[in-house]
């Protein structure tokens, strides 16, 4: 479809101006790192008259991912919830309750089976037969199995749904696990983060609506466009790190100058996410900009693997400071499938330094 064609009526009815719509589609294509000629395809897909149905399940959650969705600026939140998709089940914000709410899930599974998108927020308790989370008298596990196994695509939003998150942190009182572990065999896209960043989620949804498949994923089934790069490599304070300019105490002169937070425990050198570039709340800020270190909230099992949060990482050499890429050897780049070169080198450095591996670390053993 050529860009100058008039906006279909369906779109005008949603109060969306042509110019804004095209701008949004181009931005999405950029974010997903797709070639520019895909803009037309995105535009076409988003104008479809029959909207794909989405159901959003909440289990052992804090509703952080729900709140994050409500912060969507591009597309505006009302369009996400009402126009882009038919957002039919989502306990925190849906109109119906009780029987009427349950009936929606049943209808969607019957009428749209194999066609709807399921989103899961929160971990799933497995201890004691799942009694730690019930909805309408059924366990979370039971609901997750049924709803996700009939979905066309399933997205786990936030750390809890991905890998069990905070609820699963030691000693994991309720036997909580992430969705992939709770319902083995289904295909899940994991949008880690605590919570997920809605900018990424919107891009994943747009990708799916356009191509009917998910964007390229890493070994944790996270989209590469969002989880492929080290925070440290994208951080606006990086020059200070390289120059050895560190905040040494909270509120000191360095903190007022925006110096590096490495010594205050920043986990940016060991974490991947596009937080520094996409930022939060319509691109307003991110934790480092507010003067606090990164806690690696999009890394695997970060609550256990990245805490204590104020303890500095074991020394991580920066590029060109005391180890060069050549010394590590470029061979490692090819060895870590799907990750960016920067991250692969970063991981290798950390292995060398004896530090934790962050995003690439295997799940730690539970202490005996």
């Amino acid at each position, binding site marked *: 479809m050529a860009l100058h064609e008039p906006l279909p009526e369906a779109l005008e009815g949603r109060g969306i101006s042509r110019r804004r719509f095209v701008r949004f589609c181009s931005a999405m294509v950029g974010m997903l790192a797709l070639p520019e000629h895909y803009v037309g395809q995105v535009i076409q897909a988003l104008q479809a008259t029959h909207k794909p149905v989405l159901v959003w399940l909440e289990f052992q959650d804090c*509703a952080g991912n729900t709140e994050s969705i409500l912060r969507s600026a591009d597309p*505006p939140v009302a369009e996400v919830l009402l126009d882009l998709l038919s*957002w039919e089940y989502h306990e925190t914000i*849906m*109109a119906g309750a009780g029987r009427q709410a*349950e009936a929606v899930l049943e209808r969607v599974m019957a009428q749209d089976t194999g066609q709807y998108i399921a989103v899961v927020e929160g971990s799933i308790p497995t201890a004691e037969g799942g009694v730690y989370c019930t909805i309408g008298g059924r366990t979370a596990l039971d609901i997750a199995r049924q709803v996700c196994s009939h979905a066309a695509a399933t997205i786990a939003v936030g750390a809890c749904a991905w890998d069990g998150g905070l609820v699963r942190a030691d000693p994991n009182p309720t036997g909580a696990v992430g969705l992939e572990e709770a319902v083995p065999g289904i295909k899940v896209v994991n949008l880690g983060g605590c919570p997920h960043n809605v900018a990424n989620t919107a891009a994943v949804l747009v990708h799916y609506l356009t191509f009917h498949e998910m964007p390229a994923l890493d070994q944790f089934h996270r989209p590469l466009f969002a989880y492929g790069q080290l925070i440290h490599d994208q951080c606006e304070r990086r020059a200070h790190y390289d120059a050895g300019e560190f905040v040494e105490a909270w*509120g000191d002169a360095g903190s007022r100058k925006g110096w590096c937070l490495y010594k205050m425990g920043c986990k940016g050198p060991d974490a991947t996410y596009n937080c520094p570039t996409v930022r939060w709340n319509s691109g307003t*800020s991110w934790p480092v900009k507010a003067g606090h270190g990164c806690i690696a909230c999009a890394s695997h099992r970060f609550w256990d693997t990245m805490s204590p949060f*104020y303890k500095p990482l074991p020394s991580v050499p920066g590029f060109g400071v005391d180890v060069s890429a050549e010394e590590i050897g470029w061979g490692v780049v090819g060895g870590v499938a799907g990750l960016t070169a920067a991250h692969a080198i970063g991981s290798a450095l950390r292995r060398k330094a004896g530090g934790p591996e962050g995003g690439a670390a295997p799940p730690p053993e539970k202490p005996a």
Partner: protein
Amino acid sequence: MARIVVDPVTRIEGHLRIEAQVENGKVTDAWSSGTMFRGIELIVRHRDPREAWLWTQRICAVCTMVHALASVRAVENALDIEVPDNARLVRNIISASQYIHDHVVHFYHLHALDWVDVTGALKADPAKTSQLAQSLSEWPKSSTTYFRGVQQRVSRLVASRQLSLFTSGYWGHPAYRLPPEADLMAVAHYLEALEFQREFIRIHAVLGGKNPHLQSFLVGGMSTSLDPNEPQAPLNPERMDFLAQVAQSAKTFVDQVLMPDVLAVAGFYPEWFALGRGPGSYLSYGAFPQGGIRDTSLYFLPRGILLHEDLSRVHPVDPEKIAEYVTHSWYDYREGDQVAKPPAEGETNPRYSGPRPPFAFLNVEEKYSWLKAPRYDDQVMEVGPLARVLVAYAAGMTEMKTAVDGVLAHFKAPPAALFSTLGRIAARALETQLLANHIVGWIGELRNNMQSGKLAIHNGEKWEPATWPASARGYGLFEAPRGSLGHWVEIENQAIKNYQCVVPTTWNAGPRDVHGHRGPYETALLGTPLADPERPLEILRTVHSFDPCLACAVHVLDAQGQVRGRAEART
């Protein structure tokens, strides 16, 4: 006689189930059950108390930041740390913006659809809607064209037969009574409020790096250093301007949209000033220190207790008198289920004894909830905006008295009308307006400090664990938007030994206690009329008027001893 079940209760945070006995079209008894449990207090044991706030903040994101603040206060209390004035101000600004955000989202997105029939908007005359809107407020988005556009948007949604979030509402229910024009205006404002809340909460992005789950709290202060001359300082003149500008826009929205809407909607449902009456005793810890944290007499919202709907006397709060029952909760106490335990000595051994899922009904004679039943001096307390407003009113806070009396005069109602479902809604709106009036000034104070070179934002004297005593106990109290919140911490050998929270929704949504006294939801539902028990809209009205947050409400206190030497493992 019939038992009805509402599960899931939606448009709340978390997992709540209501069972109610209905006779002759009225609720004769009710049971409130929290159906999800995570055990976060257990998870924070043996960890560094300085990071407890990062963990406990995840108790809830609808009430993001509230547990972070209660947590740093508890640790500061235990270690005897005073925070600098700028940290106090930043915390107050973050808290006030949380109140405004939360209350606006609650009214429009969690509560309004109990009073507003979205499909009613289709029948409205856009010209008359415009007249209605202009008669209520100066808000500029009020033209006939504007409302026609909104109406077309709704009718396309209905025609597409894909109503998204509105799919399963109780549309056409006989208890809906707004004229179509009011429905249309409210739907327009529902949509506007979605955009408003997103823009407004950028205040939290500036002061906390992100929302939800801010990341700028510190034991001893905040991470948001300020400097009038450093462009890279987290807070500088440019960002102060941004904060002031966003805060100002909130004042406009609250004055011109929220407040007129609340008054207009309430005007069509006057009988709800007599329904939903709670237990009658109200608790507020007070909020927004204007000096040191210990100087409770200087709190902007006063601390106090009201007993038995008596507004003539405000009683002092003694945290020692708080205790929790598990008589009807899925936990055991070693001394048996008859005792109430204070949080400082709290104990929780989760022991589910309900029916095996899937189940149709809970066994309400026995244990039936993951929530405990907190009591103050063995009395049931309601907490939340209504409690705070009543305590402030009874304590003679002039600004609050004027505002409350204004609303009562508007409805020609006596103060007793406030002990009701609509009383909760009105109180929440009044509180929002009060804070929207003051937040701009607090941002101004912060800016003045910055300009005059008063830059301290963190007190680092006790940052290093080596400076701490071998053991210490403390608590942090705060009024979260949904009510009284307390965290209790015990620190030993630089790690958390015990951690406990007593949370707003536990006060309000908790089950019966050893005496069989109902929790506030259970009491407030008594006598609720049900026009159509198959579609229990009226139950939602009263439950939603409390603004439930169940993720907050379920917690664990001190499960005995299964945690294995975590502190050593991580040092």
